[in-house]
């Protein structure tokens, strides 16, 4: 009796098939490792929250100190202490909204330079957010103090005010234009170091657009002392907005409004 090899399913063939499918998926989804980085940060935050240590609490405490610092001598220490937490926040919350930019770079460059180019894009993006983080950490303590002194607002009510501001900004006529700008691309050269220079520039430009679009909820989060669960909710909303909502949608305004209401209720209780 003859056996046709094609009709026999060897286990290694199945393994080989799955390997090929995984390789294909990774090739077609270059954004996977930005999501993986974000996932790792989230895992760390959630595990830390569960065990009541470091991460979430440390982020919260660091930023609590950031917003309560008054003296110049403590400022540098506050910034450096809070900056790590801020950068983790950027990785956790903002990397998942960069699919389009990562794919643009990944498919614009030669395959051998793909991963390095994506890494440099993310570096440029994070650097600009870091500058913003420094500015926020310098300005917000004074703003927070001003609100507390002038209107006798608690931290919860200050956070609620910031989320209400975010909700209001969604209704600005210029909002559509800034949302549309999130889809901006630029030509990426493939000649040697130009590839990396363009990736860096594209990352920085993207960050500037993102800051323009998302500064209000991020500031609200800082004023809310980076409460991990609030961060998670805001991240889910930002991802939903980026990939599921038409750029003219006002739905996010209601979501920010609900968060503001949540902080007001917490304060009242």
């Amino acid at each position, binding site marked *: 009796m003859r056996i046709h090899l094609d009709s026999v399913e060897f286990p290694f063939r199945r393994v080989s098939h799955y390997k090929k499918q995984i390789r294909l998926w990774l*090739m077609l989804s270059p954004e996977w490792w930005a999501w993986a980085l974000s996932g790792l940060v989230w895992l760390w935050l959630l595990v830390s929250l569960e065990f009541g240590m470091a991460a979430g609490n440390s982020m919260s405490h660091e930023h609590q100190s950031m917003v309560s610092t008054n003296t110049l001598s403590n400022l540098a220490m506050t910034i450096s202490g809070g900056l790590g937490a801020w950068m983790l926040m950027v990785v956790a919350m903002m990397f998942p909204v960069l699919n389009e930019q990562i794919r643009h770079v990944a498919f614009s460059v030669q395959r051998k330079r793909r991963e390095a180019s994506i890494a440099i894009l993310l570096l440029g993006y994070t650097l600009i957010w870091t500058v913003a983080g420094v500015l926020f950490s310098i300005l917000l303590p004074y703003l927070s103090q001003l609100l507390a002194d002038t209107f006798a607002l608690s931290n919860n009510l200050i956070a609620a005010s910031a989320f209400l501001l975010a909700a209001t900004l969604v209704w600005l006529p210029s909002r559509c234009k800034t949302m549309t700008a999130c889809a901006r691309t630029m030509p990426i050269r493939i000649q040697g170091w130009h590839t990396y220079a363009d990736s860096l520039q594209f990352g920085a430009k993207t960050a500037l657009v993102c800051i323009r679009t998302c500064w209000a909820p991020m500031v609200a989060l800082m004023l809310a002392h980076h409460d991990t669960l609030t961060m998670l909710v805001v991240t889910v909303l930002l991802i939903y907005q980026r990939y599921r909502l038409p750029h003219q949608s006002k739905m996010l305004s209601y979501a920010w409004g609900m968060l503001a209401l949540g902080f007001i209720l917490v304060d009242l209780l």
Partner: protein
Amino acid sequence: MRERKNVYELPAGDTTLEWYSKAVVEMKSRPTTDPTSWNYQGAMHGFQANLPIWQGAAPLPSESEQRSYWNRCQHGSWYFLPWHRMYLAYFEQIVAQTIVDLGGPADWSLPFWNYSDTTNPDARTIPPAFTDPANSTNGLWISERNSDTIPANYVTLGALGVFPYTGDGITSELGFGGPRTAFSHSGRTHGRLEHLPHDMVHVAIGGAMGDPRTAALDPIFWLHHANIDRLWQVWLNQGNRANPGIAAWLNFGFNFHDKDGNVQMLTCIEVEDTTNLLSGYEYQGVPSSVPETGMLADIEPPNEMPLEVVAASNVAQPLSSKKTRLGLGLQPPRNKRMKFMAAEEFSPVPESTFLHFENITGTGVPPAYDVYLNVPDDDGGKEAHYAGSLAFFGVEEASTPSDHHSGSGQHYALDVSELMSQLRTLPNWKEEQLDVHLEPNSPPAEDASVVVGRISLYSA
């Protein structure tokens, strides 16, 4: 159910165009604030207050209403076909109601202009009713047209031979219907049908038709798009082809105004079957049937590796008013070098190769540019080196940051697989460089300019 007829095959004594003309005149007399007016319908496709053709359109609807319903046309997106189908359906309903109100027939339907009909020597010329008489007594005539005839190579139907609906020519083959996008889609590759013949016809006629912000003010626009809509059905009827079967496409909705001026929303899944769209319609000679979505390969993940860039320009390239020549340094990775070596014979099954024009920005309404590869220095036998043409339809709009565009410009791709295979057999083939030549089809207007951000070659 209505039948949309071929405008060149309307029987003698048919009054379809006569009533269309009367309806256009009537709709033009309505204020721009009326959603059933000619101006409002045109502005839903595109509007720019400072363009001369829009002077006199005031009073306009509120800013908020304009933001909600105007400038909504979908280009460089997989929503291109369904959005325009919805747009046409409500426009046809409004015109038909206007005709009834004027005392005309109750069964008026929008005709289509089949400019690709090679059996009709007049097919590529705008139907006479739209050009004669050439004065304001003719509702179908407008002065803002540059040409009444379209070159033959701008109406070819290679798009019908493409199988997948979705694809951008980078991560997969270039699709019939355009790349997958969100609503905000600025700067993505134009799909095969959208590029040719759709964009090419717009730009070949030029004038109002050459710019999305004014195109729908020309009565011929609607017959052109009826033909594009018909070609979508022709493509489906060939078999082994399907619309996207995923929720992101099927359930995406757009707002329009019906004949009573009320806002209505339609989703893509609701317009797949034309016989169920509003009062239903079919195209003359084209049976309407929709393959069951979810059955065909289009919705499955592609089973091939994405294409890879093998050459790209390193500076933005302004296109001149005469010829623009550019050398692309070929840098294929080791595993692709064989595909770019000189060959003895033409390969009957060439590798997929696409020439991309990315981040195209510009001003005004530039002419179409014809693209040639490796043209000999003396321009001899240039036609054998023809790669395709670029339309730049809506380039100024795509270059300007706005509520609907990021300002990144346009993206076109030409399938050069067969041409590359042929060029490799020619004596002037150079393994290290590909020469790209671009020539305007007609002299550019003074205010028109185009800059191509990057020209790149992608290979499977």
